């Protein structure tokens, strides 16, 4: 477990300098922290696919972007992933909260909670699940894969990792 300042420090140490997305309760402390951090500005989007577009523009401008979202938003992101970011090879970190983890959540999260990793596999998107005892490991491994492959990679964050 780390606090938001420590977690955002990990993101910045790994080269990220632009962030956009749509909130989730699991991400709220991170987004609150970033709202006052000029080194990693956060641009709130109205939808997750819009965030993918904004992050794509930021990457083309020379930034190393992050898109944050709840896994419900993965549904809205599949078309931009398939027909923009994987297709054109636009690397970015998808920091995605895992609602519906192990089937313990509100009903609206259960189906995506179960399907999420299979969707990443189906799209060919590499992913890492962030562990409680070493959050940095998943981020640095994601960055390595992102730079090698030049495509979006996902880091999945469960409740309680950042507090």
């Amino acid at each position, binding site marked *: 477990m780390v606090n938001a300042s420590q977690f955002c420090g990990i993101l910045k140490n790994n080269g990220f300098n632009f962030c956009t997305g749509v909130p989730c309760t699991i991400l709220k402390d991170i987004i609150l922290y970033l709202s006052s951090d000029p080194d990693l500005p956060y641009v709130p989007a109205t939808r997750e696919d819009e965030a993918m577009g904004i992050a794509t523009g930021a990457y083309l*401008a020379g930034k190393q972007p992050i898109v944050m979202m709840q896994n419900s938003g993965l549904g809205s992101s599949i078309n931009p992933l398939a027909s923009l970011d994987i297709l054109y090879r636009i690397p970015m970190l998808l920091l995605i909260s895992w609602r519906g983890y192990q089937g313990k959540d509100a009903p609206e999260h259960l189906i995506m909670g179960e399907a999420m990793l299979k969707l990443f596999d189906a799209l060919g998107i590499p992913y890492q699940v962030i562990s409680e005892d070493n959050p940095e490991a998943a981020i640095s491994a994601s960055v390595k894969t992102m730079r090698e492959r030049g495509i979006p990679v996902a880091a999945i964050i469960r409740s309680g990792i950042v507090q």
Partner: protein
Amino acid sequence: MKRFDAIRAAVQALDGNELLISSNGMISRELITVRDAPQNFYMIGSMGLASSIGLGLAISLSNAQIVVIEGDGNVLMNMGSIATIGHFAPKNLIQVVLDNECHDSTGGQPTVSNTARLEKVARASGYRVAARVTTDAELVKVLRQSLGKGPAFILVKVEKGSVKGIARVSHSPEEIRSRFQQAVRMISG
């Protein structure tokens, strides 16, 4: 005015140092026919996201002029983008919307832009320029006036229909991305 003529007029009104984002379908095909250049980012998918890509570029590259060229169907698909652009209000972003009131690339199925006043949505969302034009002369005038004074939303009423036999975008997506990045480095120094 034909859409092709509007794209040609817009390209000729610019000085060539702008970064252009063109939406999927016929608009990218017509832009590459008018003038192929590394600073054109031709979208071949992800409909609706041209303005969002433009916003990400405009926020990140304050010394470059970004021009998005898209259709009414694209705008209607990502209306939230108008709110986000209006909020951040980048001066270096111009959104040219070629409004033929239909999805021309897929057979001309009607959109709802005959009743939705998209330029008024842009104005109400905080764009500094929001105009509706019907001639190439008006388009050129508003486009030139909007350089560096955006965000600008220029809705251009155009006829349905495409130029027959127009070429597809011949570059691969990776080539489009790679040469656009080189153009960004040239323009932003």
